[in-house]
């Protein structure tokens, strides 16, 4: 990590006091990016990182000088996943079809960050249209894991995870559809949070699977992530799927005791096939929680094994529809064709990568006449069964669940070429997206020098409880989380 204290809390305080200037902070971040070789030929973290833009945004922090209370994220540089609409840098979604596209409006979460004094810091690399688990499916090349550069950082929000893991920024925004924040967080040894579906506005988040997508937060620490999540959460009239539920104080949960609370250990997430070293780390983490007075209880989520099939029907189906707008007509890449139809086909086949095409094909197929009931409708029904598993466990007195985040640590770049095998790395994360419940990953140790993540899953809008547990575990593990 950089020598200048770079926690959100410290940056905020120091910037407000004037000890550190926002411009200095971003310059340090830019230096750090150079130092860790974040560029295209190195870790390839950013699709766009424009010094001029970053410095202009840092200047905007001056407007907060006169405020009595420091803005919640004052002077904090936040890396932004490239599927969130920003006004200055392009929004490419890791795709050729949006190369150079600069959005004429900005996402609600970006506006909220800026209103909280934060400084949007570049656009990070990602699997194209968020479809992937390794950030190898980007039109702009793969991103490398800063902890082990021959390894993937995870995906689809690999660039944002790497930006935090490399110490460039303390927090970053990513997005989740099937684990795209938690899995990279686990692979990179940082904190990654997926909120309850409907907690955070999707207005300006380029849609992949609308009923699953959520903006997520990466943080170097639980506190960094909690503070950022507080700022971006809340109902947005521009997103009809956001909930009218007040935002609790997540960072305040740091002071809460977990004594007497119940942690569920779902058996389906600890199969016999689980890497025993990962199992050991998880059990060690659970032991820490027990030491702090939490009760550990074995529970079952019986429909867990159906989650991947359900996900890989529902998500591609919605994606096939969401990606129809990329047709070369109003923005983005346009490839001339013989006629309109030719233009559509040439634009889309040239503009979309293989994985995107694969998912559009599957999605279109499962929605098509004759297959809708057997596939899409059936999957949505089974999804309800998966959600009911969580509901009944939580109704039975469990406050939070704890599981491994991923079945393996980061794999090598190029190691997995079979699409379905890649899909299986989402096996522990996808259920939370399907059920809409909040979940987060935090580092709980290392295996062969590679980070391992442990995951908390809480009931709908139970972020405060979830963070309380996360703070407690982080405190209890201390440096063990990174060894």
């Amino acid at each position, binding site marked *: 990590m950089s020598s200048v204290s770079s926690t959100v809390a410290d940056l905020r305080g120091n910037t407000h006091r004037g000890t550190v200037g926002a411009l200095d902070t971003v310059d340090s971040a830019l230096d750090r990016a150079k130092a860790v070789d974040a560029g295209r030929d190195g870790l390839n973290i950013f699709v766009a990182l424009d010094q001029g833009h970053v410095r202009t945004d840092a200047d905007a922090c001056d407007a907060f000088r006169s405020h009595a209370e420091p803005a919640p994220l004052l002077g904090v540089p936040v890396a932004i996943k490239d*599927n*969130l*609409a920003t006004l200055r840098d392009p*929004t490419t*979604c890791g795709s050729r079809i*949006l190369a150079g*596209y600069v*959005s*004429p*409006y900005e*996402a609600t979460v970006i506006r909220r960050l800026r209103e909280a004094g934060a400084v949007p810091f570049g656009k990070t690399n990602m699997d194209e249209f968020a479809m992937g688990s390794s950030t190898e499916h980007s039109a702009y090349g793969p991103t490398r894991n800063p902890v082990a550069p021959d390894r993937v950082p995870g995906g689809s929000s690999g660039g944002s995870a790497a930006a935090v893991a490399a110490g460039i920024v303390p927090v970053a925004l990513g997005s989740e559809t099937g684990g795209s924040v938690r899995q990279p967080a686990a692979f990179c040894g940082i904190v990654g949070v997926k909120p309850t579906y409907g907690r955070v506005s*999707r*207005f*300006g*988040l*380029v*849609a992949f*699977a*609308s*009923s699953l997508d959520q903006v997520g937060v990466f943080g170097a620490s639980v506190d960094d992530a909690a503070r950022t999540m507080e700022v971006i959460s809340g109902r947005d*009239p*521009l*997103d*009809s*799927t956001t909930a009218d539920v007040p935002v609790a104080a997540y960072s305040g949960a740091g002071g809460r005791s977990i004594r007497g609370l119940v942690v569920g250990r779902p058996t389906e997430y600890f199969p016999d096939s689980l890497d025993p070293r990962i199992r050991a780390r998880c059990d060690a983490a659970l032991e820490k929680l027990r030491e702090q007075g939490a009760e550990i209880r074995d529970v079952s989520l019986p429909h867990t094994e159906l989650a991947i099939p359900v996900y890989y029907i529902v998500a591609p*189906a*919605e994606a*096939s*529809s969401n*990606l*129809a*707008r*990329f*047709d070369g*007509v*109003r*923005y983005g890449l346009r490839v001339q064709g013989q006629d*309109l139809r030719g233009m*559509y086909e040439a634009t889309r086949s040239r503009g979309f990568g293989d994985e995107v095409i694969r998912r559009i094909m599957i999605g*279109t197929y499962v*929605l*098509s*006449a004759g297959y*809708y009931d057997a596939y*899409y409708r059936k999957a949505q029904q089974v999804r309800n069964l998966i959600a009911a598993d969580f509901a009944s466990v939580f109704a039975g007195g469990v406050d939070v669940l704890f599981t491994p985040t991923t079945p393996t640590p980061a794999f090598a770049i190029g190691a997995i070429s079979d699409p379905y095998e890649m899909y299986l790395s989402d096996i522990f994360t996808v259920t939370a997206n399907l059920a809409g419940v909040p979940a987060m990953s935090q580092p709980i140790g290392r295996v062969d020098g590679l980070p391992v993540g442990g995951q908390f899953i809480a009931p709908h809008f139970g972020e405060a409880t979830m963070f309380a547990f996360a703070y407690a575990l982080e405190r209890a593990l201390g440096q063990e989380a990174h060894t």
Partner: protein
Amino acid sequence: MSASDVETLMRDWEMVVGLEVHVQLKTRTKAFCSCSTEYGAAPNTNVCPVCLALPGALPALNARAVELATRAALALGCEVHPQSVFARKNYFYPDLPKGYQISQFDQPLATGGQVEIGRNADGSPINVGVTRVHMEEDAGKSVHDRFPGATAIDLNRAGVPLIEIVSEPDMRSAREAGAYLRVLKQILEYMAVSDVSMEEGSLRVDANVSARRRGETKLGTKTEVKNMNSFSGVERALEMEFVRQVDVLEAGGHIDQQTMLWDGAAGQVRPSRSKEGSHDYRYFPEPDLPPLLLEKAWIERMRHDLPELPATRRGRFAEEYSLGDYDVDVLTADPQLADYYESVARASGDPKSSANWVMGEVLAQLRATGGDIGTFRVRPHDLAELLRLVRDGVVSHTAAKQIFARMVASGDPPAQIAEREGLVKVNDDAQLQGWLDDVITEMPTEAERFRAGERKLQGVLVGAVMKKSKGRADPRRLAQLLAERFGT
């Protein structure tokens, strides 16, 4: 092809018609974003990230669209459902920015209505069922002939709220189809939910028509007929397509389910060149919009607060104002005219005269200027006052017409105009006698012939006095004085 050709065919063959009508709702902003719906703006100026379908944009439903759609559905006798679901209808077209239209599929806003379109000879009603009313958004406009080799897209209209009204296949002739459309339009006008103008595009009709031998209960294969832009166009298109289908069937062929396009200029239907079979819309519930939940109490309140339906108004006019069928039809043809008439009738206390004046002078004026009653210069209470002036004998009927003309030109009240122009009726015998003297002097031959017994010359003499008095003389009094003078 003549009407009698169709009639001949219809002895052996039955025409079965269902209509799908798309109606633009009169909201200020679009269905899913706050862009203005105002017509006539420069291309692509009433657009935003949502209706441009920019990456990341999301829909937010307009409450007024829901109200107007509900009002329309209730007015058509439908059951409005407390839960309805938006769905995506997926297809590619350049004026459909998202690549899907937000519509409703298997859980629409309303179902099960009915509209009376006329009466049988025995007085029983002819009803057409309304299968469903659902909400959806309009697409943009494609202009094909403005630039060579290109199609020009204007997305101002993309996202304007629509309702789609689907009828049961209950119509059995082009005339019934026309009647249904006219009744539908009038109801929607009365409900103030839309401008319902086919010319302006706020009402569009797609027709489904099939033919079957009389007595056959199974429905024939239907074709869809599109591209009509008037009610009479719909009627003609239906007849042409019916004749075409019967010709095919009589020759032993079968009807291909296809889309036909009406060519108004040529007066014929021809097959659309689109590829059938590629219309797999892959409907699924819109994940960006949770189900629309309407409280039963709210629906009931909407029903209670419905503006008066045309049929109710017609009944009320006949009864309250003792008007005959013809007068009722003319005065209730459009709700604004009906409102105008009613204000005049109530203010003047004379429904019969009010009817005559509104159907006569007022409508004549509107026809002459192409204006509409909503912006008509003569306010109802002023017209009512004019009627009172006539009834009280303050001005003659002839003078009233002149005063009315002035009112149209200036908007001034009638009493003021009458004073100003000296049109107040003269009842003073001395003045009347004076004018009579002048006329008798100027027209001695006619006067002599009248005295000699040619009673019909009374009109001429009285008319001459009317002219001299600029319409102010009281013709009845004049006639009396004339009779007295010549001792008849």
